[in-house]
């Protein structure tokens, strides 16, 4: 199968290191090269700075569901299946992520849409003077029901590259990991990090053979090339889609809630925004989209990418915000009424 060849999964059973994941994570072997086995940074997941002094240091973050062996992804290893199903998050202090083994796709709505917008999500990303902001909701839907209200749609690829995902969750998660692997290989072979433009081109070319199949990945790659000084041109934001589109731009929103988000963003995004303004604008855009779009909702994730790498804002529940706004509106209404009396 093309995908197995690409991922090299059929070799993984022979490699003994994969067979001893979670419980044997400590020690002797060098885990710095293995994906998904970095444990030292799990406690500081909420606010992960990357200390990259030299361009060769590539910190590959392990999201919660990657803290186990990648064999979790739909394939059962007959030797260690019983170990894995139970505590997925034994080391994690962050309870929000639930990851059932057969992750249902996030698209395929049951009501016919007026036009084909089958990516059931709202993700957005834009550039400004303080770097790049990426924001997304956290609802994964499947055939009209919410499969997971707390999924993670912004996946870090490496210390200076973050990708928002839209389309089929499983496809996006898999291809992000493949991209991370290829970027790491590039870095080892060539001694420097591949630029965001290069990463976008790589992903587009990797997805091209699957064009016309059911694979559905629509990602925006947000990254920072170079070091502290802004020497490179400002192409830090790329939109890559599995139908082959690859666009460089300063503002993108992807998903079924994207038209709502676009309207809010187009009115507010300027180059001179401060970081706080940009973050609140991103949250506002996602909030408005989740208000109107049935397939977006629950919480919002915001990532901020600068020359130091990406930082993640704590996940925020939008329901409370909605309640506060309602209370605020009622207060305003009462004030108005009291003025007239």
């Amino acid at each position, binding site marked *: 199968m093309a995908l197995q060849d690409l991922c090299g999964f059929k070799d993984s059973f022979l490699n003994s290191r994969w067979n001893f994941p979670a419980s044997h994570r400590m020690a002797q072997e060098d885990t710095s090269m293995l994906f998904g086995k970095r444990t030292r940074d799990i406690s500081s997941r909420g606010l992960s700075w990357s200390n990259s002094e030299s361009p060769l240091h590539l910190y590959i973050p392990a999201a919660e569901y990657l803290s186990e062996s990648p064999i979790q992804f739909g394939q059962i290893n007959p030797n260690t299946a019983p170990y894995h199903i139970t505590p997925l998050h034994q080391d994690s202090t962050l309870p929000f992520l639930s990851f059932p083994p057969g992750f249902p796709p996030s698209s395929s709505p049951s009501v016919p849409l007026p*036009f*084909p*917008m089958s990516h059931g999500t709202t993700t957005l990303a*834009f*550039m*400004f*003077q303080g770097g790049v902001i990426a924001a997304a909701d956290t609802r994964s839907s499947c055939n009209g029901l919410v499969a997971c209200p707390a999924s993670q749609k912004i996946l870090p690829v490496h210390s200076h590259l973050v990708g928002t995902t839209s389309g089929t969750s499983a496809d996006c998660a898999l291809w992000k990991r493949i991209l991370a692997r290829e970027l790491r290989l590039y870095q080892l072979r060539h001694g420097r990090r591949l630029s965001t433009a290069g990463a976008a081109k790589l992903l*587009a070319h990797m997805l*091209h053979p699957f*064009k*016309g199949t059911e694979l559905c990945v629509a990602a925006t790659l947000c990254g920072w090339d170079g070091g502290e000084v*802004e020497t490179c041109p*400002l192409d830090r934001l790329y*939109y890559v*889609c599995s*139908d*082959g*589109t*690859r*666009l*460089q*731009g*300063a*503002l*993108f929103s992807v998903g079924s809630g*994207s*038209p709502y988000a*676009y309207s809010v963003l*187009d009115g507010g*995004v*300027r*180059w001179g925004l401060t970081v706080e303004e940009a973050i609140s604008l991103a949250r506002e855009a996602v909030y408005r989209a989740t208000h109107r779009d049935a397939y977006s909702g629950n919480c919002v994730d915001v990532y901020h990418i600068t020359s130091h790498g990406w930082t993640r804002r704590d996940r925020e529940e939008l329901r409370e915000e909605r309640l506060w706004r309602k209370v605020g509106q009622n207060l305003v209404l009462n004030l108005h009424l009291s003025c007239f009396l």
Partner: protein
Amino acid sequence: MEYLIGIQGQDFVLVAADNIAANSIIQMKQDQDKMFKLSDKILLLCVGEAGDTVQFAEYIQKNIQLYKMRNGYELSPKAAANFTRKNLADYLRSRTPYHVNLLLAGFDETDGPGLYYMDHLSALAKAPFAAHGYGAYLTLSILDRYYRPGGIPRSPSRLFTIPLFYCPPSPLSRFILNLPSFTVRLIDTEGIHDLEKLMPVGAKLLAPAPSS
């Protein structure tokens, strides 16, 4: 949705393409360049299905450059057009056909200017003027009305003043879609020249995206 136009003059070829990259009802990008430089004097304008355009155009572009590296001289526009047509035709009856519509414009030292029209079924025709897209329905009749082989004015702004864009009501103002800007390039004996972007009267351009 997308629009390409090419006009051949006595000693130049003028080509223009719109700048919109769209995804269903949303304009994702308003400054997309749909022209690919195949060589110093050959431009390929490519529209069609989302990923196929860039993939096919870059494939042709790299192969033309490879030919130059291997053989030391560049392909003529006619040869490049036929090479493109052959590739498109070969892929047409495969599992992965490329759904692209092309205009190839070039200047040859011996043959002079040339404009080649190619559609997604890999039909190739050398034409004095050509257009692709829904906008073609609106503009081809104007070109038929005003085109004279020897009489195309050298200055492009005057050319476009007469039929196409500046003179309201311009034909494209009839089009239901908003195409706010067009990239214009001119190829003559000295090579490819970038002309200023055309922003037709009455078209609305979104506030420019933030840039440094």
